[in-house]
């Protein structure tokens, strides 16, 4: 009989299971960023600030309170966690375009794979970096939220690990998708996937307002991240989190295994 713990072992390809040095890719990025690259990361801090300020100043006053899942809260407290999750998603997807550059143009990984490093190390390492970068944004976001009075509970701190999972899951899927892209033109389809996800993941209004179309919203992976961080911001713990988190974990494992396989396919011909 297969236990739940064995499941990832069945899904993940040998290259991922053999990954022992994913942190070397982080080390590489550290060296790259040491020479000025951190500025790019810093600019990411301003995005949440502008978002949250616009809500604090604008929407908050216009909209008033929102009722979601039987709980009533100020609109700012409702929408800020959703933006927080979206920002974790965005950060990791942007990083995926860098992977495309390294994979297709700079050929960064060809030489890496001539060492004891494997495609699993590369895939996992680059996803961890995207997650790390996303986590920096998330910390900045959360601090801004708190400073603007948009956090409702001390448990808001638990939103951070969830944001990291969102980052990892989206970077995994985005990087997997990137490995199928042939030219920069293919990236023009990305906003047409991201924008609807951003708008319709119960981001700006509660799931209940979607009526019979709630199932569509639930298909959006971002929704599952939003649902958990929104609850946590209110200091609420629910069993349903497990289901939401499982969706994100499944995305992460799927993206990771596809990416490792694709790197093998593309570079180890």
């Amino acid at each position, binding site marked *: 009989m297969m236990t739940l713990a064995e499941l990832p072992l069945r899904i993940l390809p040998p290259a991922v299971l*053999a990954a022992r*040095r994913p942190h*070397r890719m982080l*080390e*590489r990025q550290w*060296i*790259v960023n040491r*020479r000025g690259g951190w500025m790019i990361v810093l600019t990411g801090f301003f995005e949440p600030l502008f978002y949250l300020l616009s809500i604090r100043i604008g929407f908050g006053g216009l909209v008033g309170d929102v009722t979601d899942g039987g709980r009533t809260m100020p609109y700012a407290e409702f929408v800020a966690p959703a933006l927080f999750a979206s920002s974790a998603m965005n950060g990791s997807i942007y990083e995926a375009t860098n992977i495309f550059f390294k994979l297709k143009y*700079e*050929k*960064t990984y*060809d*030489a*890496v*794979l*001539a*060492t*004891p*490093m*494997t495609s699993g190390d590369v895939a996992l390492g680059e996803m961890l970096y995207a997650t790390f970068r996303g986590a920096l944004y998330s910390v900045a976001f959360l601090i801004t939220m708190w400073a603007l009075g948009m956090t409702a509970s001390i448990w808001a701190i638990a939103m951070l690990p969830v944001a990291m999972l969102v980052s990892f899951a989206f970077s995994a899927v985005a990087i997997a998708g990137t490995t199928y892209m042939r030219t920069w033109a293919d990236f023009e389809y990305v906003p047409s996937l991201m924008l609807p996800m951003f708008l319709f993941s119960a981001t700006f209004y509660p799931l209940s307002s979607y009526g019979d179309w709630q199932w569509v919203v639930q298909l959006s992976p971002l929704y599952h991240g939003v649902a958990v961080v929104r609850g946590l911001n209110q200091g609420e713990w629910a069993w349903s989190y497990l289901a939401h988190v499982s969706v994100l974990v499944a995305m992460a494992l799927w993206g990771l295994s596809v990416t490792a396989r694709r790197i093998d396919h593309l*570079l*180890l*011909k």
Partner: protein
Amino acid sequence: MSTTPLIVARGLVKRFGSFTAVDGIDVEVHRGESFGFLGPNGAGKSSTMRMIGCVSPRTDGELRIFDMDPATQGKQIRARIGVVPQADQLDEQLTVQDNLMLYGRYFDLPRAECRRRAAELLEFVQLTDRATSKIEPLSGGMKRRVTIARSLVNEPELLLLDEPTTGLDPQARHVLWDRLYRLKQRGVTLVLTTHYMDEAEQLCDRLVVMDGGRIVAEGSPRSLIEQHSTREVLELRYPAGTNEERAPDVAGIGDRSEVLPDRVLIYAHDGEAALAEVHARGSRPESALVRRSSLEDVFLRLTGRSLVD
């Protein structure tokens, strides 16, 4: 010391779709040896090197490196080899020094050791003054030297060099040959590919001549020349476009002759004697040159084509 060859290939095949790039080759490389794959573009040299370097799975046949199987023990094998790929594949986002240091980290070397080896290797390839330069502004020859330094970071037992000097000017080539020669003296096993016969003659103890994915001859440069060519070659040049026409005038001189578009080659043990006979027959080439046979002649003999097109 173990007598198992470092590389053993038997009936090694590489196919890309229905195209066969490497068509069943048998190779053995022993420790301490300098071994070469000599062949023109498209012969299958890089495909072979990539299979040996465990970055390309073999399609068929047998391949063992350090008596291990690349299909299952690629990581362990790669830990013990150094690779200079045909395209340098340097990390353009890093400096020269960081390229070397990070590469050492991929082999799990401690950071201090990476730093020590990077400095030492930059000294070895005479690039200490470019340590903090980015890759992009370096000349082709310098990039090649960085790549060689990088390939030595893990102190490999086996060094794979895919066309180490292609595209470099003569001076840069000589600098590289000198460095490779030193490595050879230190006992590093070198396996290199080239389409330059002078490079093969300079660096290889033993080589195989490859053409169309197959091995057409094998031996030391000297034995290959002895087997497949004469000691000397007389090169005759007639006015442009008339080489073909003039060839019958000198037929039968020497052991055999080859008519190329730009010259007629006469293979003879004694080139001067052959030239005397050409003159005796009243044939007047624009220029005549006697030289020693080279691997180029071996290749021409075996395939009917020149190495460099």
